[in-house]
């Protein structure tokens, strides 16, 4: 055999697995047909966050007036895209460097499986184990006219060739909402069309209310319960909202209704798959003993940190340990303004699992640090089961939610009760104090809440 393990796909799932395998003493190669870093670095997490930060700067400039800073600005989208390209290039280069540092061979090209120990790229390579980490690609729904000019996906949107005057985004999921936030900051008139009757159904309504309020104040139009019927030339989006057919003319339509597993080159293995992707067990093992799959291609939670985590789990299992993936504590983030983040169970799930629950909340509008930043829209919510006050869920909307949520992740992971959070001194003035106050609210002894 040429290698102990060959990893197919160089995204966060694949490259993380490769590094850990090398650290565990394995001889490893990684095959990538495009660019190391995968969707995440090249067309996903990272580029969107460069634009999200640019949007934050723009919105900061707009809000600065209140602080006595009077500013004018113009946006140079070429320069903005180039910033994105520099950041991506540097990170992709970093992954390449890590491969070298860990003596992992990088094989450029598309891998196709020949049998369970062999792939074909430029030539044949053999290995005892494989990890399939081929990721996902944008799902293009079968909407008539979706192939019209002016209809794009996130890949194209990230090229930032122009700022449309009017854009319609189909899908109010995480990707759809993040682009809505970005285009809004860049000055587009944004409409978002979502099929579901509720926005962000995985989190609680009190958090979503604040998001809805923010969308309204930014004049982002949101149509829930609305199904796009066709896209006419123009483009013009025809959709049915609560049974009534409406239409919107615009310059660009961004399709963001989901992503599908990228099962390509794997056909010959006849792996078990389901509607969503390659089927794996809790050890990340596919229906073939020596072959593992991780990340978006498994159709699970499509997040980079889940892919990386699964990569770690797979690596340790290949190295002979017994590790099972556990998805009970996976933070999810939405990088809009305000940011949203959640981890563990929402209120409904907690009630279902534990019966009685105790809720603690604290609004940003009562947080000193939030006020000093002019960031009054926000809420910290802690969900505890009522028997021991064990913290089982946390949801945050507001500035830096994506960072401070990790206090919730640790607390849930280590089975904290609300007391442990409440009794930990939190620095003043910080947004994290809101977590402490929410914990005190769970316990019925809030300090700064009337």
């Amino acid at each position, binding site marked *: 055999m040429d290698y102990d393990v060959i990893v197919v796909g160089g995204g966060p799932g694949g490259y993380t697995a490769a590094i850990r395998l090398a650290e565990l003493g394995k001889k490893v190669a990684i095959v990538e047909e495009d660019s190391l870093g995968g969707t995440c670095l090249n067309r996903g997490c990272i580029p969107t966050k460069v634009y999200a930060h640019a949007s934050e700067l723009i919105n900061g400039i707009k809000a600065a007036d209140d602080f006595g800073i009077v500013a004018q600005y113009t946006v140079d989208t070429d320069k903005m895209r180039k910033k994105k390209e520099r950041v991506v290039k540097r990170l992709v280069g970093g992954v390449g460097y890590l491969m070298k540092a860990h003596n992992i061979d990088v094989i450029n090209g598309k891998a196709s499986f020949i049998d369970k120990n062999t792939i074909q790229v430029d030539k044949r390579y053999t290995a005892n184990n494989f990890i399939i980490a081929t990721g996902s690609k944008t799902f293009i729904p079968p909407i008539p006219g979706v192939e019209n000019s002016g209809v794009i996906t996130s890949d194209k949107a990230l090229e930032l060739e122009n700022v449309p005057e009017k854009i319609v985004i189909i899908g109010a999921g995480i990707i759809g909402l993040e682009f809505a936030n970005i285009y809004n900051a860049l000055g587009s008139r944004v409409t978002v069309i979502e099929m579901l009757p509720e926005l962000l159904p995985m989190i609680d309504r009190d958090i979503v209310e604040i998001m809805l309020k923010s969308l309204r104040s930014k004049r982002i139009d949101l149509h829930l319960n609305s199904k796009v019927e066709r896209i006419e030339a123009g483009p013009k989006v025809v959709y049915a909202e609560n049974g009534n057919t409406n239409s919107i003319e615009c310059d660009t339509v961004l399709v963001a209704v989901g992503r599908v597993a990228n099962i390509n080159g794997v056909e010959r293995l006849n792996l078990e798959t389901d509607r969503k992707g390659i089927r794996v067990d809790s050890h990340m093992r596919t229906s073939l003993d020596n072959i593992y799959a991780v990340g978006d291609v498994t159709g699970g939670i499509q997040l980079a940190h889940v892919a990386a985590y699964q990569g770690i789990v797979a690596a340790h299992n290949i190295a002979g340990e017994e590790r099972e993936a556990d998805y009970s504590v996976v933070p999810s983030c939405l990088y809009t303004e305000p940011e949203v983040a959640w981890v563990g169970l929402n209120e409904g799930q907690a009630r279902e699992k534990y019966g009685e629950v105790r809720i603690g909340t604290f609004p940003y509008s009562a947080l000193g640090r939030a006020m000093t930043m002019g960031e009054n829209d926000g809420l910290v919510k802690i969900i505890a089961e009522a028997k021991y006050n064990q913290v089982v869920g946390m949801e945050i909307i507001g500035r830096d939610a994506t960072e401070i949520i990790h206090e919730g992740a640790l607390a849930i992971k280590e089975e904290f009760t609300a007391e*442990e959070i409440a009794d930990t001194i939190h620095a003043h003035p910080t947004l994290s104090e809101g977590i402490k106050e929410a914990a005190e609210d769970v316990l019925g*002894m809030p300090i700064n809440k009337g």
Partner: protein
Amino acid sequence: KESVREERHVQTDKPRATPVARKIAKENKLDLKEVVGSGPKGRIQRADVEKYLKEIEVKPAITA
């Protein structure tokens, strides 16, 4: 809102112990149920396990 803070012990189904306390107990094949926690709400802290280990070292289990 009524206070639900439990000032003394939070009794859960398994002993509440800090991660380090658990790790030391595991390394020494110690059942945490035997250890009394001095931490907040009766949580077993590192010091409790270390103290317990010292005690059983000093007086070996002659009763066993």
